[in-house]
């Protein structure tokens, strides 16, 4: 395929871009790996939205805490062990934060209106953001991954980072684990039922409060895991929370609010349109995922899959 055109952009640019199937395939893989990371974060958000009906804006902050915790663990322990340990400790630490927040704050608020919850979680995002600044400071942080995952290998004659391959493996693993949780465990089944009809589950004599707590903690666990997984590829800074939360909400909206598989489909749409946008029209790549969102919402206003709301 060949794209050629000349643009007058103050630059007199001659833009001739050539790419064949191997470049396209490589770009698809890069987009898929980004989708997997987005899926891990948005699956947690979607779970909380579906079961608890809480639009948790602080989900991005939990993801940021996960990244900072991963930084602390991997620098304190050091080496490859530090990285692998951070993938376990960071999600657990974030889950603990989530458990405390749920038991002290959220559990009193489930019956409130959505607008109240929105304001509350927004406030929580600001508080957690400041807490991160107090604990870790404003400097940029960076995590080194295990040497096994460093560098790149050649695929279709193009370099592909090993770490992105690792993300391509982690995504499906998390998806399978979540599927097992919601369809095979008792608490998973109850939380699915609670997502459809909360009152009925309560009437059946099930302690809904603990079902909610479990779902919330798992949601936080996923946010923390997402943070720990992205840590080695970016600079860990304040403001990570804002970047991810907007994308995450868009993804759960196009996927269908509260539907976990919707989150997967939404992430795939978002990640892949982004990476192909970068390839076909690099100057305006930023808008591609958002254009995709608009198209999806025009065609299916309630999202790709059935929304539980």
């Amino acid at each position: 395929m060949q794209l050629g055109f000349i643009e007058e952009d103050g630059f007199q640019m001659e833009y001739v871009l050539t790419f064949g199937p191997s470049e396209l395939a490589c770009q698809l893989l890069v987009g898929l790996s980004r989708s997997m990371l987005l899926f891990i974060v948005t699956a947690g958000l979607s779970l909380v939205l579906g079961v608890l009906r809480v639009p948790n804006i602080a989900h991005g902050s939990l993801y940021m805490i996960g990244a900072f915790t991963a930084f602390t663990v991997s620098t304190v322990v050091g080496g490859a062990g530090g990285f692998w340990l951070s993938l376990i400790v960071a999600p657990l630490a974030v889950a603990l934060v989530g458990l405390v927040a749920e038991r002290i704050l959220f559990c009193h608020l489930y019956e409130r209106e959505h607008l109240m919850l929105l304001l509350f979680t927004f406030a929580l995002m600001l508080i957690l953001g400041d807490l991160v600044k107090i604990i870790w400071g404003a400097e940029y942080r960076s995590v080194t991954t295990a040497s096994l995952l460093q560098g790149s290998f050649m695929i279709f004659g193009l370099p592909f980072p090993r770490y992105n391959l690792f993300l391509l493996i982690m995504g499906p693993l998390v998806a399978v684990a979540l599927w097992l949780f919601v369809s095979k465990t008792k608490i998973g089944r109850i939380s699915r039922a609670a997502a459809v009809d909360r009152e009925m589950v309560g009437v059946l004599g099930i302690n809904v409060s603990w079902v909610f707590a479990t779902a919330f903690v798992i949601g936080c666990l996923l946010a923390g895991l997402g943070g720990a997984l992205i840590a080695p590829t970016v600079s860990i800074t304040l403001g990570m929370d804002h970047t991810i939360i907007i994308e995450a909400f868009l993804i759960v909206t196009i996927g269908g609010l509260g539907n976990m598989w919707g989150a997967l489909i939404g992430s795939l749409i978002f990640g892949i349109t982004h990476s192909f946008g970068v390839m076909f029209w690099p100057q305006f790549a930023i808008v591609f995922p958002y254009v995709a969102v608009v198209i999806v919402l025009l065609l299916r206003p309630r999202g790709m899959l059935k929304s539980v709301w």
Partner: protein
Amino acid sequence: MERKTVLRLFAIATIFVAIGFIVCSSCKKAPKIERPIKVGIIDCYSGPPAVYANDALNGFKLALNEINKEGVLGTKIEFTKRDTKFKVDIGLSMAKELVMREKVDLLVGTVNSGVSLAVSDYVKGEKVPFIVWIAKSDRITGAKGHRYVFCTGENTAMIGKAAAVGLVKKPYVKYWIAGDDYEYGHALADGIWNNLKKTKPDVKLIGQSWWKIGEPELTPYITAILAAKPDAVIFCTGGASMTNILKTVKTTGMSEKVPIFIPTATDHAVLKPLGPEGPEGVMGTSDYLFYYPDTPANKTFVKAFKDAYGEPPGFPAFHAYITAHFIAEAFRKAGSLNIEKFIDAMEGLTIDSPVGKVEMRACDHQAVLPEYVGVTKKVPKYNFVIATDIITIPGPETMPTCKEIMKEREK
């Protein structure tokens, strides 16, 4: 009962009015020189840019400690700071608050070019000097410059020219430019490309990509650029994106496949967080390096800074440090706190800095600073990559001439 309250209120009010009179009359009587010189700092102390703002603040404090030991015109320099949160409207209202309520003599700041330009526009009307110390848009002292705005750091025009000087000797023809989609990124790209095209007309720009600030996933951009097979790539990024791009360059092995030029990449605020994992072989520029030039003056400054704050100074600290010395020297030269005299004194003022003499150019109020073009490399002395093979390009060579500046301003 009610009457009593009224009386009591009346008495309190009288006392307040009386105190007000006493305070006012005393401040009228006092000679001006007995009050401290008040500097208002506006900068971004929250979010990712805080790392630069805090570095600058430390440099400023260090300089003030030195200056206030001997004093300026028998008084001291004090400062008040406000957080702009990287937003133009907040920055502007903070500047107004400092000028109107805190009655500062002059303003300094900030890391954000947009905020700097907005505040510069405001101080022009208020006739309050404003010294920009980190923001790098060349419009601050170029097209949008005026009598009340100064800049003590490099700008995109200088970086562009330095980059062009560095790149013109290389054999590359097909370039790709990518960067952060905001004022700084585009200004930098324009600066580099216009200069490069002027000095070497056969260069070709085969494509550009622009991502939003803070974009976490840059791998698709890199793979797309590699697919286009340019001879060299120029990245115009700043702040957190700088770390992101350097990490992605490393993981994709890009620096081994295609030459990369990243303005300001050799600053250690960028390279240090990456530790030994920073990519080698990346060309970059900087207008201050704590390890170069290896002169006694620079060593003394670095040691004092390290003792006080535990880290070597970055370029913002250096800019803020010379800013404080410019302020002190200008007031000494002016002999009073009169603002117009202060500005006259600033024009053409030369001070001693850690890297030698620095002049404040009279025509455009831009500090004349050298640019260092270098290549990143691992050295045993530091646990992070640093710039090596440094070429120094003296200030006057990288700056647009006074004639060019005046032409820009007339437009």
